[in-house]
């Protein structure tokens, strides 16, 4: 399929466009400008205020006072939960040390011992669904924050090796771009069994986004739709799954194993099975997660929201007596620091962010990531490999936005802990007694 290649933007055009975009994010998110939030911005899950507050945080490293940066208006889940803050005199002092680091290997085996500085890392976004610039922005920021980001299923662009110690290599059902070299380079290998936004349906990169470079990386034909099948065709039991992990453990004798699954009815059994197969990290991806392209019917209708899956898995693993030997990571609809803290209070150890990273870099959640009517992908330069559009996001700018965004998230996370009188993020895990359900409306 022939496709028009757009020219790279001239330096002047790049300068102008970036100036207008960056200034626009500022004009819309800051209180001292004459402009209000765009009326068409936002939805029930990501409200206009949540999006604008992410822009504010990504520019300042602070949480805004003039916007609700904590919850959306979905009418359920995280949006109905609030923390039971202690009276001010019982809270920890504003300058009290609070530890939000997260240890990932709890199995006590000889593999990597890795502690990340914040209880979250970046979720998988493949090369093809996003550009190298976006991948590198996330990787550079992960390096700076001593955390991680995942390649998604689309290969390992050579630029990423610069940040190899902070990049998770994902192995998914299509094995697109999976190489021995990228498995050996990674501190963690992530097996993606399913994705929350399209559970049980595999992956789909539309033809318009599978350009020359993307196809080369994936070993496919340019501008042909790529389906990542479902499931792993070599896996029909927990024993098969274990062989899978053993295969990769042999290729990389030090990497930790992460298993990413969706949230079906028996998610608790799946998690326990994965643990016994050798996983260090069980990564649950809930039904409200992001995606580059998914059938609309899959979003929300298949599998359960992450808020409802976390306690189920947490409690079951406690009953099995294995809870302290595995790291439980939650994603799929985790938007804010408050969401992450609530997820941890419900029983997770940490979280994975995906859409939030993109929003911080300018995403308006217009849902045209799959190509949209233009066939070129994201007009903001995020979820696209279009030769012109991808230039709107430059690595240094993207990494800086994410750095400041993470700064604000970390500040808020520590503030929550102080308000609850906790000095360590681990103390929050499973503390549903510190939560309050708001029955009549949003928290």
């Amino acid at each position, binding site marked *: 399929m022939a496709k028009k290649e757009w020219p790279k933007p*001239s330096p*002047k055009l790049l300068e*102008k466009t970036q100036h*207008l*975009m960056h200034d*626009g994010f500022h004009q*819309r998110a800051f209180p001292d400008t004459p*402009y209000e939030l*765009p*009326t*068409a911005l936002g*939805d*029930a*899950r*990501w409200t206009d205020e949540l999006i604008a507050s992410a822009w504010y945080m990504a520019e300042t490293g602070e949480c805004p006072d003039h916007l609700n940066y904590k919850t959306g208006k*979905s*009418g*359920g889940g995280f949006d109905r939960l609030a923390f039971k803050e202690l009276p001010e005199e019982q809270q920890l002092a504003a300058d009290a040390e609070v530890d939000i680091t997260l240890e990932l290997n709890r199995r006590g085996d000889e593999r990597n011992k890795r502690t990340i500085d914040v209880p979250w890392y970046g979720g998988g976004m493949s090369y093809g669904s996003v550009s190298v610039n976006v991948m590198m922005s996330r990787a550079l920021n992960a390096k700076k924050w001593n955390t991680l980001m995942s390649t998604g299923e689309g290969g390992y662009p050579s630029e990423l090796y610069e940040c190899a110690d902070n990049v998770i290599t994902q192995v998914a*059902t299509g094995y697109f771009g999976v190489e021995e070299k990228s498995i050996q380079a990674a501190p963690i290998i992530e097996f993606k*069994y399913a994705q929350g936004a399209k559970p049980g*349906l*595999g992956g*789909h990169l*539309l033809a318009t986004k599978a350009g020359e470079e993307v196809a080369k990386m994936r070993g496919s034909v340019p501008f042909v739709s790529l389906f990542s099948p*479902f499931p*792993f065709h070599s*896996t*029909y039991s927990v024993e098969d799954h274990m062989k899978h992990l053993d295969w990769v453990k042999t290729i990389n004798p030090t990497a930790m194993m992460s298993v990413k699954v*969706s949230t*079906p*009815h028996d998610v608790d059994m799946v998690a326990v099975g994965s643990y016994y197969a050798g996983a260090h990290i069980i990564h649950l991806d809930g039904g409200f997660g992001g*995606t580059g392209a*998914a*059938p*609309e019917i*899959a979003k929300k*209708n*298949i*599998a*359960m929201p992450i808020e*409802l899956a*976390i*306690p189920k898995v947490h409690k079951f693993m406690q009953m099995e007596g294995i809870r302290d030997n595995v790291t439980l990571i939650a994603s799929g609809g985790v938007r804010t620091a408050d969401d992450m803290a609530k997820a941890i209070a*419900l029983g997770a150890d940490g979280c994975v962010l995906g*859409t939030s990273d993109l929003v911080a870099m300018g995403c*308006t*959640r*217009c849902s*045209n*990531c*799959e190509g*949209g*009517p*233009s066939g*070129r992908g994201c*007009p903001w330069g995020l979820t696209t490999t279009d030769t012109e559009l991808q230039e709107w996001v430059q690595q240094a700018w993207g990494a800086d936005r994410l750095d400041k965004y993470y700064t604000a998230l970390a500040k808020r996370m520590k503030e929550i802990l102080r308000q609850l009188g906790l000095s360590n993020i681990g103390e929050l895990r499973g503390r*549903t007694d510190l939560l*309050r*359900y*708001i029955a009549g409306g949003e928290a």
Partner: protein
Amino acid sequence: MLAADFQETSDNMVEGSVTIQLPVAEQARLNRKLADTYHRYNIDAVETENRNKYPRRFNVKVGKIGLAKLLFKEFFKYFGHWDVVFSRPCTYGVFSGPVGGFAPRPDLCVGCLRCEVQHPEFVTVTHNKELAELGDSYLTSKHIATIDEESRKGSVPVRGQGYRGRFGGPGFDQMFTDMSEIVRPSRDGIHGRELIGTSVDLGSKPMRLKFGADGGLLEAPKMMTIQVPFFYSPPPDSVATGIVPEILAEAADKVDTLLFLPENTVTNQGLAGPHVVPIIAPGQIGNIESHAKGTRMVEMSSWNLTAWNQVKEHPLLVSIQLPLAGDWMSTLMEMVDNGVSIIHLITDHHGVADDGRFVMDLYQEAHFALVDKGCRDEVTLIGTGGIAGADHLPKAIITGMDAVGLDYPLLIAMQARLTGDTKTRGAAAVKLPSNLDKGWGVQRIINLSCSWRDQLLEILGAMGIREVRRLRGETGRAMWCGHLEAEAFGDIEGFPGGEH
């Protein structure tokens, strides 16, 4: 086909000789010929453009003075760099008309808001109220927009980004369907979706076969099969005659499903056929004999024992309508006790019974009552009411229906606009496109059917279920938001009905 093939094979034999093996190549040719006669069920979708202009999603307003000022400024600032001067903040062509942003083309806007973010001083993008006002409190503008896309393209709507709506919700939104991490309907995974069966049987499934002394079957099962677990319900009174029934009848034929229509419409418009089910009042049930042209099934518009006794031994299948009102459960049991094999449960267009309960609860009650009675497989339950989106289809089946009826979505597919009482069955005022023609209408209905079937395959594939018949009443493969919330949040202070 087997008989024909046998004949052809025999023709190649030498008369009076013993059976001889045909040459391998010849046998292979015959086998190939036989195999080629098999056609996997498929719905032929063809992109079919709208006849009426559909309300655009967004309105785009550009301040002309602001734009002129910007162009003036940039003309001098970037003089000679014309790519910069003429660059536009839109990849969708909203500002690519002959005079650019001075006459924007909002029909092309997808709401990325790049123009408004970049130029807050003179660009405004707003949701189009005309679109938002479509539909009613149940069949919302979002449903209508989705149906419009489905009936236009005939494919599964695919978008980027995640879910944008509310957590859980009323009606069908309270259910999440299950998925399986490793179990698949076929070794081809979801991409072997063509191997997933969507056909359903209507009628009484025989619990055992009875043979006579000569080895012949004593009673042939009285049942039929349609290729999809949905059928077309009668259109509202205002369009109950004329082109709409004609379109639906032809589409039902091509999709291999059924269209239910009042008997007089069938007769007056000459629509009788294998894919049309005449609805007959109990008092007129004697008319059943007059339905020819391959009619396979009729429907009695209400329960009446005398009328039923007249037709229960008739070779045609007979279904009976049962409005979910009053003491419908007693009526259901009476019907079952009297041997009714197809029962059609009916509610209003919002899927609500007269006691205010939603069909998902009522369908389960009906289904499990028959399970408890030990006769579920001897009765086919079909339901009409409240199906407004593709996801409602598997959810209604999970709650116990063998097949469900489509009503308003069929009209929306034909770009009809509904006004007046849109809740009461039959009452809505329907405005059809003035240039509606049969061919276009049929293809739009076929496209919608194709899209919904494909979306059903997505759900079945994710669950690892090989045929839709196995989905019926599989409540164990569904998750109710309320139950999950009680399990997850029950120990949290403030949760209604929780421990605190």
